């Protein structure tokens, strides 16, 4: 069984981002970049499936600028076998990413594609579902548990109010939620080994895919700031304020 896993390069989880001075977009020049945390979970799941003998090959794919090679090397160090970068200019929209991934799927013929459920920059939460739609495959979005069979996979999903379990025909698309697993720390020898693994670079043209944008960002701004309130001495004072001043209890 072959698994395709996708990784996106995003501003690091711990970095605070700001609008550009002219408010036209997000300022990400000189910001520390890392692998999208949900994609780390996706890679980890693929590697565990291989370690447990359920998968034979893991291909990591990224779409974006040339520096995305860094996050692909991280995926290789975690245990992916080889990597593909589809080099594009500025960040393509989720639909364009899904189209490029569809073309990669047709080329590589994986039995399972695992993506992070959302990227923490755009917070779109779209690409996996879009890819499944374009392929006509089943989708296990927001997965917290994945059990792989020969013809089918059982996916437990995080839904509002609890959990839902679906059975998907293979091939299928799964998007990783937080509780699917806890990604491993990459060890130095694996980082060195990853440098020797195959990383192929393709262009959208190589995949016969034309990227069309349908969204224009007009403005990026910080939301109105909430003012800090006051400190109260104890529970009695708090209850009095909530009852008498703001009347919420």
């Amino acid at each position: 069984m072959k698994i395709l896993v996708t990784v996106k390069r995003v501003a690091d989880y711990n970095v605070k981002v700001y609008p550009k001075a002219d408010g036209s977009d997000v300022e990400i020049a000189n910001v520390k970049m890392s692998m999208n945390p949900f994609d780390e979970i996706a890679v980890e799941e693929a590697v565990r499936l291989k370690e447990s003998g359920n998968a034979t090959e893991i291909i990591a794919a990224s779409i974006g600028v040339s520096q995305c090679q860094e996050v692909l090397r991280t995926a290789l160090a975690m245990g992916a076998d080889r990597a593909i970068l589809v080099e594009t200019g500025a960040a393509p929209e989720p639909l364009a990413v899904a189209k490029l991934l569809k073309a990669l799927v047709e080329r590589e013929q994986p039995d399972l594609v695992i993506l992070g459920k959302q990227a923490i920059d755009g917070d779109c939460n779209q690409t996996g579902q879009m890819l499944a739609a374009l392929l006509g495959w089943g989708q296990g979005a927001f997965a917290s548990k994945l059990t792989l069979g020969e013809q089918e996979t059982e996916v437990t999903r995080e839904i509002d109010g609890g959990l839902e379990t679906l059975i998907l025909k293979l091939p299928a698309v799964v998007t990783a939620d937080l509780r699917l697993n806890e990604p491993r720390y990459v060890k130095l020898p694996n980082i060195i080994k990853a440098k020797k693994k195959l990383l192929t670079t393709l262009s959208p043209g190589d995949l016969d895919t034309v990227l069309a944008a349908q969204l224009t960002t007009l403005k990026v701004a910080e939301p109105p700031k909430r003012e800090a309130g006051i400190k109260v001495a104890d529970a009695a004072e708090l209850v009095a304020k909530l009852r008498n001043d703001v009347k919420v209890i």
Partner: protein
Amino acid sequence: MKNILVIAEHDHATLKTATLNTVSAAQSIGGEIHILVAGNNCAGAAAASARIPGIAKVLQADAGHYAHHLAEDLAVLIAGLAKDYSHVLAPATTFGKNLMPRVAALLDVTQLSDIVGVESTDTFVRPIYAGSLLATVQCSAPIKVITVRSTAFAAAASEGGTAPVETVPAAAPLGVARFARQELTQSERPELTAARIVVSGGRGMGSGEGFKLLEDIADQLGAAVGASRAAVDAGFAPNDYQIGQTGKIIAPELYIAAGISGAIQHLAGMKDSKIIVAINKDEEAPIFQIADYGIVGDLFKVLPELFAELDKLPPA
């Protein structure tokens, strides 16, 4: 301009409140609004949709394979209907987030996630980077496929309308996914996203037992119980309690945060609450920067005191 289609989220018998918030977003776009209720024996939810004032028409698609709202099957139905509409809206709940990108891809259009504002028929405001920034985005797609953050739009009225209910044929099942089972958290407390008051705990709660203190206070206040990701990761609370970028987005009238430091990912889920109370032993915790009322102290001392004070309180 063409009409707007709102995809109802429902349990076949009744509508989920987020549907009413989505209708309200549709009203701020402007135009004739239709509601699609796709389910199994869903006449109850269709009738509830018809009672929303200002709805022109309710479409009801009833079929066995819509019983569990599988995105694979619903997306085919909606994409078929969507060609007659300028906008297709659904709530940005796990239901809408699972479904709408699939609809958009079938229509070969982009999708707008989690809008919090409507500037015009083609321009919308949506949070990015866990809500630390707001992007104003213009969409050139012929059909705008949108999910709506329910806390950003007041719920539309639920009674008074008399829209006609029209039956639409179900689409053939895709046959790639089937429902196996569901485990829903059983609770007597109000649903997190609909609660007027939320009492929430973080890593500072120290244990699952610590949450018992919060639950007692929640029951005094008729509140829901929430948690930060740190508390969920530590196993103190179930995942569906989680509030934040990767959990639920809420905006209750009163949010009480106990032992929550206030990571940006958590603030993303609750910073639009009307009144925020923070209880934390660390005076420097970022949560105090957005709290209306803060108590610096050991929550294992403060929470029992709060319980006792609330117990003394005469009914409002």
